[in-house]
């Protein structure tokens, strides 16, 4: 699991202004992984899946205008901040923080170890401007930018739809974006980081970094035995729909190519992913 540096992190409240464009902040509430369900019900599991530490919730009010709601999450690490940002990528780039989306009154962005959601309870020109202003001010208050997590450079670039790249740690989130199996066949968990990306013609590549080469090898063997017992020695299996799945691992990295058109295509993409793993320092 990523090192817990919560004690060194700035107070979340310091990062959120007390007013914006005539809206004034009301009370501050802070929730942790145990109390998050009091605030956002079972949806809190998404944030727990990304090892989140704390969330600050603050409402802004202005007479005659819709309320604005800020949720600022300390995710503990840039990997988790970017990861939870990629969980929901609907919307247009709003140029806030290190990555952002805006749609229908909802601005989401990440920067360093933080993920922020700013929501207008009704969208109009004024509330939209206030949401974006609030987002920019919070992003500016976060002192540092984080380097792009290395796992994001593992997927082969050619044909990758970058708007579909998800970064995550658990098999529940994997299944959310692309169902593989109910069981945790790939030993995903808090100590792993994984990316999933889509390519033309339904092809997907899943790349996982494990904490050790032994862990990667164990997951490789488990997945091969259960999911693709019919795989060749090269880790390639023809699936029931006539497509090809390839499974490869090297060092701490593991790659699964789903839905390739041919064995050679699957093998090439898997090899390139593993090469990227090595180049990225895994």
């Amino acid at each position, binding site marked *: 699991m990523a090192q817990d540096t919560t004690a060194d992190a700035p107070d979340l409240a310091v990062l959120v202004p007390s007013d914006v464009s005539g809206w004034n902040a009301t009370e501050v509430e802070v929730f942790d992984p145990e109390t998050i*369900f009091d605030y*956002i*019900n*079972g*949806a*809190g*599991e*998404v*944030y*727990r899946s990304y090892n989140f530490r704390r*969330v600050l919730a603050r409402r802004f009010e202005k007479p005659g205008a819709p309320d604005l*709601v800020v*949720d600022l*999450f300390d995710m503990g690490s840039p990997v988790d901040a970017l990861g939870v940002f990629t969980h*929901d990528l*609907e919307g247009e780039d709003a140029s806030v923080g290190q990555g952002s989306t805006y*749609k*229908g*009154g*909802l601005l*989401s962005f990440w920067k360093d170890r933080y993920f922020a*959601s700013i*929501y207008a*309870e*009704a*969208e109009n020109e004024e509330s939209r401007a206030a949401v974006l202003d609030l987002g920019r001010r919070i992003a500016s208050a976060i002192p540092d930018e984080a380097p792009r997590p290395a796992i994001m450079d593992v997927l082969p670039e050619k044909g990758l739809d970058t708007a579909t790249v998800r970064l995550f740690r658990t098999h*529940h989130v994997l*299944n*959310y*974006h692309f*169902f*593989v*199996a*109910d069981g945790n066949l790939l030993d995903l968990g808090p100590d792993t980081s994984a990316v999933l990306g889509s390519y033309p013609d339904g092809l997907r590549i899943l790349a996982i970094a494990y904490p050790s080469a032994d862990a990667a090898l164990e997951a490789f063997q488990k997945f091969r035995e259960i*999911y*693709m017992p019919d795989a060749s020695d090269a880790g390639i299996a023809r*699936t*029931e*729909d*006539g497509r090809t799945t390839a499974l490869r691992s090297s060092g701490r990295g593991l790659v699964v190519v789903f839905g390739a058109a041919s064995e050679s295509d699957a093998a090439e993409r898997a090899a390139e992913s593993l090469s990227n793993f090595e180049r990225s320092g895994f």
Partner: protein
Amino acid sequence: MAKRTITRRDFLKAASVAPLAASFVPALKSGTPGHPASGAEKARVVLVRDPGALRADGTPDPDVVRRMLDEAVSAITGETDALAGWKTFIRPEDIVGIKSNVWRFIPTTPEVEQVLKGRVMDTGVAEDRIGIDDRGVLRNPVFQQATALINARPARTHNWSGVGSLIKNYITFVPRPAEWHGDTCADLAKIWYLPEVKGKTRLNILSVLTPQFHGVGPHSFSKEYVWEYKGFIVSRDPVAADVIGLRILEAKRREFFGEDRPLQPTPHHVFLADTRHGLGVSSEDRIELVRIGWSENILI
């Protein structure tokens, strides 16, 4: 239409909700706390809609809601007199908990709660023997002593369980809800066999007055994805009612997005409630859907 091939991913997904799975939990097949249909009998689900169900400010109109729920109860029970129908669910000596839902964006609403309370009182139950609660049910003396429960909540998508279902509405009957979140809430139906609720549920009401068919952001909410459907889905069987609600949400998603966009995560807890836990009926060929009232854009 081209024949679709079943892949191993499809198989692994289907296996988790297949009837075969139920054979591994035989102890839970008895008891049937949701009063599901047995044998060849179909589970009756009533979908009642009225264009006047919501007032100009978007809140439910209590008079219309009362009439709609009366019609649903009559259709379920076969009693032409609605009150007689309500009396088949509730006895004067009952202690009644109305299990509501307080999710701030789309709650059950005070109007619907009060209509339900009024109808329970009409059956002869004293007011001090009726409770309305959601997150406080375990501490609520009425719910602690309840002999009958009415389960009422809105239908919506949920970014951990797929849908916020009638089945899921009982999660506040456990002290640590997070312990039931495994496999995206797969086994929520087991809650229905706990002593606090087992065998007590007399009626399930899935509000589709203003359902939500898609969610975004931490709160999984956006007004963009809420629409005025102006209906209720009512049944003795929570699973069958949830299946109907689910189909309406799916149909709305197809209409809105212009493509078949499956819910994420999959709402498999609804089907596992049947196939793994025997709580009710999830197979649509065993559900009798009765449509009452407004049919415009009914989607099912």
